[in-house]
């Protein structure tokens, strides 16, 4: 369980996240939506321990992140929005390199299964810089999940990916969730969100303004649209709910 208590984040004298408190339950699959610049990626980085809150506390199973940092990082798999890979290496070399960095080793069976499911063996010996965007996304996800994490954080994992590749990725993530892992992912794609989420988190004006099931989101939709009617991007997103 990850808890945020009165957390805010400022960067270069600008409020990126306004004070908020929330809890992410273990084993939940949370789809994070919201307009650009609403603080979704910063929130995910706070969960990943890549950013520190300016105020407030983030805790993992009741223990503050500062004290549990190694345990948190051992449990978390993070897939950034950027293709955070070494472009010159082949898929095989890429996975081999990141596996070597894992301090406690990896489960080869889990990796083999992930490679098979995402069909990475088709491009096994190809350099990353010669792959299409879809393949790069798949490798990006695979590297982020190498340690078989219990908490999977994904920042727009399927952005710019073709439908077939998207199906592969969604299928794999759904399987991870079904096996009991916690999923937090940012997406703008409702098809994907409906396939994966059992809970939604809506970000607006630098904080989460809604957290709950799809049914509750439908109920609150009108209120949210009314409260944030100035935010045209959010209104447009909520129209699709």
């Amino acid at each position, binding site marked *: 369980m990850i808890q945020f208590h009165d957390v805010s984040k400022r960067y270069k004298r600008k409020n990126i996240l306004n004070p908020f408190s929330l809890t992410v339950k273990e084993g939940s699959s949370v789809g994070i939506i919201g307009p650009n610049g609403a603080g979704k990626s910063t929130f995910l980085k706070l969960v990943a*321990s890549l950013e520190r809150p300016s105020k407030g506390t983030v805790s993992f199973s009741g223990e503050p992140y500062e004290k549990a940092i190694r345990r948190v990082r051992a449990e978390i798999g993070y897939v950034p929005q950027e293709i955070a890979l*070494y472009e*010159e290496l082949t898929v095989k070399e890429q996975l081999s390199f990141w596996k070597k960095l894992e*301090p406690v080793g990896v489960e080869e069976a889990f990796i083999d299964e992930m490679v098979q499911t995402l069909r990475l063996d088709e491009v096994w010996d190809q350099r990353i810089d010669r792959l299409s965007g879809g393949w790069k996304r798949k490798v990006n996800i695979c590297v982020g999940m190498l340690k078989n994490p219990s908490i999977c954080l994904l920042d727009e994992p399927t952005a710019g990916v073709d439908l077939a590749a998207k199906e592969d990725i969604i299928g794999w993530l759904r399987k991870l969730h079904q096996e009991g892992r916690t999923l937090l992912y940012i997406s703008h794609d409702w098809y994907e969100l409906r396939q994966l989420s059992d809970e939604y988190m809506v970000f607006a004006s630098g904080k989460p303004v809604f957290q709950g099931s799809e049914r509750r989101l439908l109920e609150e939709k009108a209120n949210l649209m009314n409260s944030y009617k100035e935010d045209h991007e959010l209104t447009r997103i909520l129209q699709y709910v």
Partner: protein
Amino acid sequence: MLTYLSLHLNKWKKRPGLALFILLFPLLVTILSYPFFQKAAEETAVPVAIVDEDESLYSTTVLKRVKEADRLRVISMSSSEAEKGVRKGEIEAAFIIKKGFQDTLQNGEIEETITWVRSNESTLDVFAKEAIGAELMRISLNAKAGNTLEQSSSVSFEKGFQYADQFWEPDPLFQMDFKKRSSEALAQEPYTLASWQMVTIELYFLYAWVVAILFLKTLVADQRTGRLQRIMITQHTTFSYFAGHFLVMVVMSLGLFLPATIALFFLSTAPLPFIAEWSAWAVVVLGTTLVITWFFFMGLGRKRWTVIVLIVLALGSFTLTAADIGLTLAWPHSWLVHKP
């Protein structure tokens, strides 16, 4: 930490042409510019003129053999040119082989066969005088032997001359224990770097330093593309990442600098202890420079502009040291030059 070394080796393997060029560039420069180095070394030999007025077999033999002498640069010219050259100080001295040189020697005489023209500034021409004197003695003694045998037996002058000449090869049978002024003898003296060698080493140092600075761009890119964040989560800490990259930078930089510098020393026939001493000093200076560069880069937040600032600093260090204009001890290049 070695994982990062193997990562970069793997990356360089993908662009073998570029990687090899970067690695071998200073070595190639050393080898390609070797003829220039040789010419420069030749120009440090004592320049003397020989004027051959006799143009006989004996005079050309003397000329040919003296030209082979170490540390002498023998130039053939006319009598008037030679005297002018000595006056202007362009040549150390001139030796004029007078007409009738061969006839005089064949008569077993050596007096007044060669005129030695020198000025008050001439100092090193004694080496040439010694070399010419030795050749004169050799021909004269051979001629004396030829004459004696021809008069006392049926052996011809030529046969007697050749017979006597064999006692001069490979070294004269009897000789004074002169210390020969050769490259071997010079090696015994303390070896010092010529200014062109010093500038070349400074350039290699600059090259290795700049390549190391450019390597730091990898760290900027890792941060920008999110790879560093991924490493932070994967390894729980960034210590290994930074230590590994520092190691790669040092290994790469030394790998560029040391072979080229050692090759230069070898081509310049520097003695081994000198090479070892200089290499150790260069490693210390380059290592210190890289540590400072690293902390400067880290302290300024690993930004792209930091790389530019560091390159400007490196170029400034080289320029200010080479130009020798004040504040010299503030620059890594001058630490290199001022070896204790």
